[in-house]
């Protein structure tokens, strides 16, 4: 088992390195560009003295490298700085929003992942017949419309015309789970629709790829039933491609959340990020960017680690 543990450790180390590089990139991306933070906070009418004081307060006179390490050091200790516009502590502000976003993403994943795998299997089972064609037509349509428009179309039909769900997704801590779920029903539906198509198509491709292997033919020529062929021979070899598909789409879901939160005025990370991009509140944008990138890198890492663990050549070395 030693070589496989080494590979996993390497993969984890690589992700951490990647995250560090990403933090550099995000920090540099907001530094090298024109624009003076102090000026944008105080506005054009600010006196030179006020600007100089604020710059000193914010540490803007330090060299960028020093500022980067201060920022990184803070971030590692859970201190993401203070928002320029409101003066609020960013870590506190993000806390509850992050859990709201996770709540939304969790339910979207909980519905879309099993559904996508089931429909993907269905498409394989009825390959080139009508269920398969229906699924690919649906895929083409859904990747041709941006998420936010799917959101408004559903809002228009389900919330405004049919009045099944509320059109905005307000949630707060005093609500019961049932109330919360009712409130996020629409955004969850939209997110599910958005990732479902891709996930289905990729699951179908992954399973078809395995089903075309010579060992599946061997199993068929042993006279096994379709169910046993899939369960014993296709499934063990499909785990890693399917996990990859799921992780890739969850990563995509994380990005979709940003836009959907804006559509449904949902108090989460996405809404928070977009608001502060418009206000040019750099520390908030940096903090949110880092968190989104960390989730994204983490999901990709999990996919790779599952691939390593599921590979029989690595699990049973020569």
């Amino acid at each position: 088992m030693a070589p496989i543990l080494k590979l996993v450790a390497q993969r984890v180390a690589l992700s951490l390195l990647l995250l560090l590089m990403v933090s550099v990139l995000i920090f540099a991306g907001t530094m090298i560009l024109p624009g003076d933070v102090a000026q944008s906070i105080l506005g054009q009418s600010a006196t030179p003295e006020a600007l100089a004081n604020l710059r000193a307060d914010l540490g803007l006179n330090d060299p960028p490298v020093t500022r980067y390490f201060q920022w990184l050091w803070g971030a590692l200790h859970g201190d993401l700085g203070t928002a320029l516009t409101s003066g609020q502590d960013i870590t506190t502000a993000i806390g509850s929003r992050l859990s709201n976003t996770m709540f939304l993403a969790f339910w979207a994943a909980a519905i879309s992942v099993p559904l996508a795998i089931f429909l993907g299997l269905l498409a394989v089972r009825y390959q080139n017949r009508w269920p398969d064609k229906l699924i690919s037509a649906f895929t083409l349509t859904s990747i041709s419309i941006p998420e936010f428009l799917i959101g408004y179309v559903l809002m228009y039909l389900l919330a405004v015309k049919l009045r099944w769900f509320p059109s905005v997704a307000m949630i707060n801590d005093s609500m019961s789970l049932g109330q919360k779920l009712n409130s996020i029903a629409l955004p969850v539906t939209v997110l599910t629709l958005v990732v479902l198509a891709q996930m289905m198509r990729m699951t179908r491709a992954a399973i078809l790829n395995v089903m075309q292997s010579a060992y599946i033919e061997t199993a068929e020529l042993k006279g096994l039933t379709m169910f046993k062929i899939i369960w014993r021979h296709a499934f063990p070899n499909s785990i890693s491609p399917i996990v990859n598909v799921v992780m890739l789409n969850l990563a995509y879901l994380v990005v979709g959340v940003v836009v959907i939160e804006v559509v449904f005025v949902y108090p989460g990370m996405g809404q928070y990020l977009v608001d502060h991009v418009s206000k040019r509140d750099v520390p908030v944008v940096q903090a949110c960017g880092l968190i989104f990138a960390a989730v994204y890198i983490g999901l990709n890492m999990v996919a790779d680690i599952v691939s390593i663990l599921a590979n029989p050549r690595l699990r049973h070395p020569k």
Partner: protein
Amino acid sequence: MSEPLLKVRDLKIGATVYAPGEPPKDIEIVHGVSFDLERGKVLGLIGESGAGKSTIGLSSMAYGRGGVEITGGEVWINGRDILKSKLSDIRRLRGGEVTYVSQSAAASFNPAKTIMEQVIEAAVEQGKFSRREAETRARALFDKLGLPDPENIGARYPHQVSGGQLQRCMTALALCPEPDLVVFDEPTTALDVTTQIDVLMAIKEAIRDTGVAALYITHDLAVVAQVSDDIMVLRNGDKVEYGSVDQIINDPQEDYTKALVSVRSINHEEKAPTEEAVLSVRNVTARYKGTKFDVLHNVNVDLYPGQTLAVVGESGSGKSTLARVITGLLPPSEGEIFFAGRTLTEDFKTRSREDLRELQMIFQMADVAMNPRQTVGTIIGRPLEFYFGLRGAEKRKRIIELLDEIELGESFIDRFPAELSGGQKQRVCIARALAAKPKVIICDEVTSALDPLVADGILKLLLNLQKIEDVAYLFITHDLATVKAISDNIAVMYKGKVQRYGSKTQVLTPPFDDYTDLLLSSVPEMRLGWLEEVIANRKMESAGN
């Protein structure tokens, strides 16, 4: 007379082809073939690619691969027509009464399960044996098939055993359920020649000891002659000839069969080295970047003008690496190469245009050796333009001359590679090499991907061109029959070293060293009883296993 085990009548098989950009087309690939197979007998199905031999073999399991479908006829096994059976009955047939051994065991084993699980699966599933009985049976089969450590090899995963061993495991898998019929589909084609003979012997003994009937599918008549009782020769989905092994080998009736039997009987008189060598490899040692292992060890060979040096060896012998070193694709770590009185630089990038022109190369896979978006005219014309500055009518005239030399003719000038057959493609590649008017052409396994008769045509063409153009060949191959047909000198390579080197007669005349003996004796010969003789006389354990 008792009913035969397998009775095939007027079998027709169709396939749907999906040509890109065109609507799918249905074509017939087997046109009404009939034959019988008695219990305990072995029928060899032989033919070139596209003959329909695998398709016919699989029809005995009522199975069509990919878009293939059985469209007509009858296939009777144990007294019932399986083409009219229900799916559940067909399932009992597959893996119970009839089993299958494929060409590539490496792909046919599930990588995620142990060998034992897969070997006993059909036997247990079909209710023929209990799990414990099946495992005992499997171990006995492993032992009979000559697998090392038969008690424990089943616990390994497919990637943990060698290719030759896995092919024998696949045979165990097929024999474990005690079937009435086994379909062997080119079971030794992917193996090296010294490994092939062991697997072949193991299969032959297993068939004899278990008394199972078999369909043995191959393109190699010499191989099938060793294991079969009867042979059916197929071509383009039709039966050409059907008879006992003795009759087919010793008294073939049809022209096509005669051609197959006499394949590689080109008689080439070796020439004595007269002048200075045109290409000399001196003390060359080489390894691939980032490895610590020499793939070539102190190699010394000479090639004389207008002659052929055959470099022969199995996979991993370093013969293709030698070609890469000479062409300058892989700089050697030690040693020198002299060419036409000059010293060649190590890297082809630093060689003069004259050096590059005079040393040409022909590749194994003609398919990928030609740019699919260039016409034959462009492909052959480019060296003319590049080295000699020929343009327009002058260039066209020379292209047509070259096309005539390779026996294709002017009409091919505007065709794309995809419109050519395998043999035609290789001819165009030969013309491209000749266009540079080289002194030496390196031929890397140029006939290995071709059917035997087509390969023969290419060899004859190469010999003929050698006379006309006075070009020398460095001919790299794993096939000793090819070596005999074309060479003046031979270098036998084994594990990166030249094991034996000299004129054709010297190399092929005893006394041999152990490896050369093993290699020469492993090449199937087109006569009955050859396999038994060889096994009886074995001096050295097989090299690759």
